[in-house]
């Protein structure tokens, strides 16, 4: 006898509202159906009604964890159509911003993953260390997450020499902690029991389903936009693309933790090698006729912005394809055959961001308007 276990739209396992209908026989999962759309906000349509600068602020807010990536993808496309060349120093600062964001996002993910397997202590400790990065972002750019440092033509603020020592200090502390966490995750028996050989995504499945990001790098796919389609200063800052072979939840966690170490190295190199000069080229607001596709390696994978301009102040069409959208089809093969207990951790292992996925158009306010169902994490009395 199989019955359906609804996960969502509100559920303590989920950070954002989405709906999974999981058909189970006992504890074993036999089928998964995903229903998206709970956070439509009409962004693609909204972007075509706003000027580029205004649209930049909107694009940043597609996601609450990866605003820098969204800015960079949007800007990459706009600068290509408008023929704007970003100054060298700004490219390095953009790289630093993007890597700081990658670190904070991966630590956030690691905390959530720990929480999903019931290891609250580790969750708290990951997020404690994440504060080191958020403090840096606040010091450099005034805001912890939506820092808006990248703009069309360059960056808004320079990194001053007196800020560098604090950056290096926090990064050194963080590096030590993350190395320790990698040891813990790879050796703690209860973590291994819950994460090893769970939610396996084979390399073939990952490539066929056109999935992206650390999710596929954990399955052995050697692909990273920073190396293969470089932007900002990535062709000048050396880094390793982190690959794991097993494709299970443990591999996905390890890939992200190792990427944090790699990002720390990249920021150090960028701070060292940053050339002097202006940080912003002029953008007059008008963009000529043309089209471009901006791609970046966001925290979760390939983020793509396609912009079509018919000349003028506003874009004609903006198409956003976020990494979680690309990774959605992988959820079913990872879950089927497993048990209910694995659902939260397997879902968390693709590092889902449903705000990113659901941003497609709802134009009017009449019938069938999709409400934003506020993420209401049920408050459970602490046990």
């Amino acid at each position, binding site marked *: 006898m199989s019955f359906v276990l609804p996960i969502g739209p509100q559920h303590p396992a989920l950070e954002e509202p989405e709906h999974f209908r999981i058909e189970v026989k006992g504890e074993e999962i036999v089928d998964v159906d995903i229903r998206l759309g709970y956070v439509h906000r009409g962004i693609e349509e909204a972007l075509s009604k706003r000027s580029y600068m205004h649209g930049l602020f909107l694009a940043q807010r597609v996601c609450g964890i990866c605003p820098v990536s969204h800015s960079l993808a949007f800007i990459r496309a706009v600068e290509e159509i408008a023929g704007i060349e970003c100054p060298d120093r700004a490219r390095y600062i953009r790289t630093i911003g993007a890597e700081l964001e990658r670190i904070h996002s991966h630590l956030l993910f690691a905390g959530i993953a720990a929480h*999903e397997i*019931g290891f*609250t202590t580790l969750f708290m400790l990951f997020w404690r260390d994440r504060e080191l990065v958020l403090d840096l972002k606040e010091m450099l750019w005034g805001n912890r997450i939506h820092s808006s440092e990248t703009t069309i033509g360059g960056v808004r603020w320079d990194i001053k020499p007196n800020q560098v020592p604090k950056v290096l200090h926090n990064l050194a502390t963080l590096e030590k902690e993350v190395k320790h966490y990698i040891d813990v995750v790879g050796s703690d028996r209860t973590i291994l*029991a819950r994460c090893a050989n769970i939610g396996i995504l084979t390399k073939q499945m990952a490539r066929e389903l056109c999935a992206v990001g650390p999710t596929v790098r954990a399955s052995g796919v050697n692909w990273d936009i920073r190396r293969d389609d470089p932007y900002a200063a990535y062709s000048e800052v050396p880094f390793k693309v982190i690959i794991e072979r097993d494709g299970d939840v443990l591999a996905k966690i390890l890939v992200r933790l190792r990427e944090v170490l790699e990002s720390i190295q990249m920021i150090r190199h960028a701070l060292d090698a940053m050339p002097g000069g202006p940080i912003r080229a002029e953008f007059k607001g008008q963009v000529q006729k043309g089209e471009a596709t901006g791609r970046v390696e966001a925290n979760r994978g390939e983020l793509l912005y396609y912009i079509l301009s018919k000349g003028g102040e506003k874009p004609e069409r903006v198409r956003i394809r976020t990494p979680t959208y690309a990774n959605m089809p992988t959820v079913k093969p990872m879950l089927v055959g497993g048990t*209910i207990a694995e659902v939260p951790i397997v879902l968390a292992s693709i590092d889902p961001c449903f705000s990113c996925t659901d941003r497609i158009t709802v134009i009017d306010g009449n019938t069938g308007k999709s409400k934003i169902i506020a993420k209401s994490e049920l408050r459970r*009395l602490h046990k």
Partner: protein
Amino acid sequence: MIEILSFLLAYFVFPGLLFAGALGLLFMGIDRKVTAHMQHRIGPPIWQEFLDFGKLLGKEDITPAAAQGAVFTLAPLLALGAAVTVVLLLPINSAQPALTSVADLIVIIYLLNIPAISIMLGGYSSASPFGAVGASRYVVQLFSYELIFIITALTAAFEVGSLSLSNIVTYQAQNGWLVFKAPLAAAAILVALQGKILRAPFDIPEAESEIVHGALTEYSGPKLGLMRLAYGIELFAVAGLITVLFFGGPVAHTIAGVEIPGVVSFLIKTFAIVLLTTNIRNIVARLRIDQAMKFFWTIIALLAIVNLIIVVW
């Protein structure tokens, strides 16, 4: 008349509902504080559980329309009643518990299963898929730890040669704590404790991130308050039982000329056991139900049975 009054006093005040309830909630509060500091946070004040309980009592009492109302309402009361009764059977103040019967260890083991069963009943009667899954996990977990619990408790009884708790306390006062004579059993019962009070790695029936709140999902307001109070008393009772069986129970000591009454020594030891469970639960992740069962039925069962055999021969 006097007997009825003294029974009522014992049941409701000391060492019954009021005393055990207050201590249970206090232990839970201190556990939260210690957990918070282990996690590098500040955490709620140690009185938080009292405040939560009071708040819950003041909320609207809701029973889901599809639930079986009578069972749903009865479950928390059953749990509370059984937990308090166990406390009455424990020697807290002295070697003599408030209530005695001939084979009180067996009675206690049975009574301690009732809170578990009432949670399961609550889960099944709540007409929620999460409740059903939580209750079924609880059943499986019960099969894991309960046998170990029984075997180890009986090991202590065999060592002493009696099922009466007051005899076990007096035996230990003369011959030393049983933890030194039956260490494997003591280790096994502490692991079984972790399963019995639903703490990581065995908090599977209430895995918050998977099945909302398991069997207690549909409970709210005063009923949830009573369930939590019952949990607090159960925590106190089971830890207290282990103190009596293996760690000497309420024995008065004289240290440096200061006399420490038995009840204080009992409370300190019980609290130390609770802290041990807190420590364990903060340093591990949660296991899956099949992994937990395998763990109990292999390693822990081995420890318990080996010790039983040693003691019986």
